[in-house]
């Protein structure tokens, strides 16, 4: 489907479907916001609740109708006219009523009658949990309130390609960001376990392990949106890791890519497609799919506290592997060639590891190799 033709404005600012129900055409986010603000009155997107009396007065004046017409209108269009029996409505809001003609309810009855799976997915149970905590949250001070007319983007970050399980089905996290956030802030909000990986053998110096996290060692990362690589150049150690890809593409006659700085690009400056997969790469080869699922103006039922943004609204949890001794804590150490361990390799939590392999002074007992282990579900 081509972009919609608007006689006045250039069509590139009004997103339309590129492929039906799949993704949109590329559009500039800042201009999209301007288009909306051009078409709306400030009270349409303000956070104040609407004033019913004022609205009715204005409506009556505009239509030139009298008071009795307004009362008639009000009573005819009221919501009470839609509720059937207010009496037994409240009795069983979850039970399907008998003798129903609605196909939806017949379908629901059929589903309820089928044997329920005893293992209900925890994800469905807690899907809205984070959302519920923050929706409608107001800030403490006025300065922290989201400005009216601000854009909110919903971004899905998927599991890294190394995790085979939910690679393209379920997003790992869903983040809500405002338009004025930079890509660097988006990067900081993404939590990936590969950032916490520590490489190296630490059996003799277990306490030094946290100092060598990959997050601190390899700081380079980039986002790829619509042919532009946005590199993270905030720290002196950061390198332009997209240059390899760009050079390769040039030599293979692909269309040229360009680069930009992550920390200088705000989300409103981007030109992206909604619903189209893009890339986030860090640690050299840990790649995540990034999809912007929604771009919209802020609403009063959103969380209005800017301190809470970037806001995590959904997190997919993975099964974690527990310590082989206590079966309670998540495994933090991975040992091989261990004479104390029941299996090779073996997982231990921090406490059990130290209790088993080191004496009270912290001297190494026995012969083993120990590697710090980061479980995939460490961010649960």
């Amino acid at each position, binding site marked *: 489907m081509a972009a919609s033709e*608007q006689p006045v404005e250039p069509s590139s600012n*009004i*997103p*339309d*479907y590129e492929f039906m*129900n*799949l*993704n*949109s055409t590329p*559009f500039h986010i800042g201009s*999209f916001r301007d288009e*909306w603000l051009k078409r*709306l009155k400030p009270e349409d*997107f303000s956070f104040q*609740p*609407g*004033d019913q009396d004022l*609205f009715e007065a204005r*409506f009556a004046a505009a239509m030139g*109708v009298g008071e009795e*017409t307004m009362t008639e*209108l009000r009573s*005819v*269009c009221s*919501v009470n*006219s*839609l*509720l*059937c029996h207010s009496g037994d*409505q409240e009795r069983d*809001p*979850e039970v*399907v*009523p008998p003798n*129903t*003609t*609605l*196909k*939806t*309810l*017949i*379908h*629901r009855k059929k*589903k309820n009658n089928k044997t329920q799976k005893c293992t209900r997915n925890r994800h*469905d*149970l807690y899907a*809205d949990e984070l959302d519920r905590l923050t*929706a409608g949250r107001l800030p403490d001070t006025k300065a922290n309130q989201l400005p009216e007319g601000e854009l909110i983007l919903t971004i*899905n970050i998927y599991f890294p390609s190394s995790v085979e399980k939910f690679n393209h089905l379920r997003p790992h996290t869903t983040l809500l960001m405002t338009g004025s956030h930079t890509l660097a802030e988006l990067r900081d909000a993404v939590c990936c376990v590969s950032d916490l990986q520590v490489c190296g053998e630490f059996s003799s110096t277990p306490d030094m392990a946290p100092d060598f996290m990959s997050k601190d060692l390899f700081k380079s990362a980039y986002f790829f949106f619509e042919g532009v690589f946005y590199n993270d150049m905030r720290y002196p150690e950061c390198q332009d890791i997209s240059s390899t890809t760009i050079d390769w593409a040039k030599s293979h006659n692909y269309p040229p890519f360009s680069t930009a700085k992550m920390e200088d690009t705000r989300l409103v400056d981007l030109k992206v497609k*909604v*619903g189209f*997969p893009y890339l986030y790469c860090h640690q050299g080869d840990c790649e995540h799919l990034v*999809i912007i*699922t*929604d*771009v*919209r*103006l802020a*609403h009063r*039922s959103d969380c209005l506290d800017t301190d809470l943004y970037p806001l995590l609204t959904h997190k997919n949890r993975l099964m974690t592997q527990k310590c082989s001794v206590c079966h309670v804590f998540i495994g933090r150490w991975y040992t091989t060639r261990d004479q104390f361990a029941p299996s090779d390799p073996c997982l231990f939590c921090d406490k059990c590891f130290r209790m088993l392999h080191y004496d009270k002074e912290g001297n190494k007992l026995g012969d083993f190799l120990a590697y710090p282990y980061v479980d995939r579900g460490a961010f649960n």
Partner: protein
Amino acid sequence: MESYRKPVKSDCEALLSRFRQTQSVRFEVFSNIWKEMKFVQIFRQSHNKRAFCRMVLDVAYCYFMPPFSFQIRVGGLYLLYSFYHCQNTSPPEQIRVALKDWEDVRNFEKESLDAQHLDVAYILQQLLTCKAFLFTAMPTLLHYNRKRTEEKPELCDEFMERPCRPQELINTQLTEEMSNIHELYKNMKASISSQMSTADAASVSLIRDGIVSELCSAVMEFYNWQQNKDTVDEAQPSQERISSQQECSNRAKLLASIKSKAYEEASEAVKSRRHRQVEIDLPAEEDKSFLKLHHSRVPKPSLKNRTKEQIRMSGNMGREAARTTLINHLVTLEPALQEKIKNERRFKSLNEHLESQTISTSH
């Protein structure tokens, strides 16, 4: 949750088709149908309430947009209003409006204001005031879901706006102007040709003489064909009504076709005012007759029956055609045998069930 989409869509379509049959755009009519169907019970859901409400609002939203007819769009707006207020999640799920659709919403509002449909305008502006709308880029959340089960969303054909561009183009103003210009042209041609020889005069005829009436009749033919498309050809009542229509003047019929876009009931509060200013008053019976042409669909008879009725073969060919063929003779069973097999099949499953029960009880 996706499995609920189809039943919700069919429920909405059932409600909208009943609304369409009332030929009205009043909210009172809609809410009566809603109450009758006990539609508010659609929200009886134990878990995943949010996702369900989101889907229901998305389904209703598509009926508010073109290419549906004005009445269906009004029905879609009422649906959105009702779903928004009757939903049981809190905070409520908003109605998503995409930027590309805003122009259509504004045009819809203008149309309803022009036609003085007060309740439509009231409800739309009421939704705006209570911040029910969410101003978004695309109508739904998109996450590149490659598994598309239905290739194209099927739009109910009955709800679509009847294309009426021929009527819009050849309207009364145009025909009047054209006939005036035609008169002028004829007069001018007559005055010039009187000074020329007959041979030259004949060569100056550039246009057909009866062009205006031909255009009118072409448009009427199109309109009649459109009306007849929904009705069955063999149905008696429609034929009577069509013949009565053909008795009226061309121009009046043209007006009637344009007026069919409007609705007969004005807003409750302004009963005395017509909501569309029409130049010529049509007689009352004719008005109702063609509005009633919206029949419900009668299923067509099978090809075999239609052939039997319509094709008459005489003589040897006819006798041969009436006989059953050799192959038919070979494959049909004797009637008694056919009955036996039918009964066996019917009771087969029941027998099996009884047998299995007896076996289990005997253990």
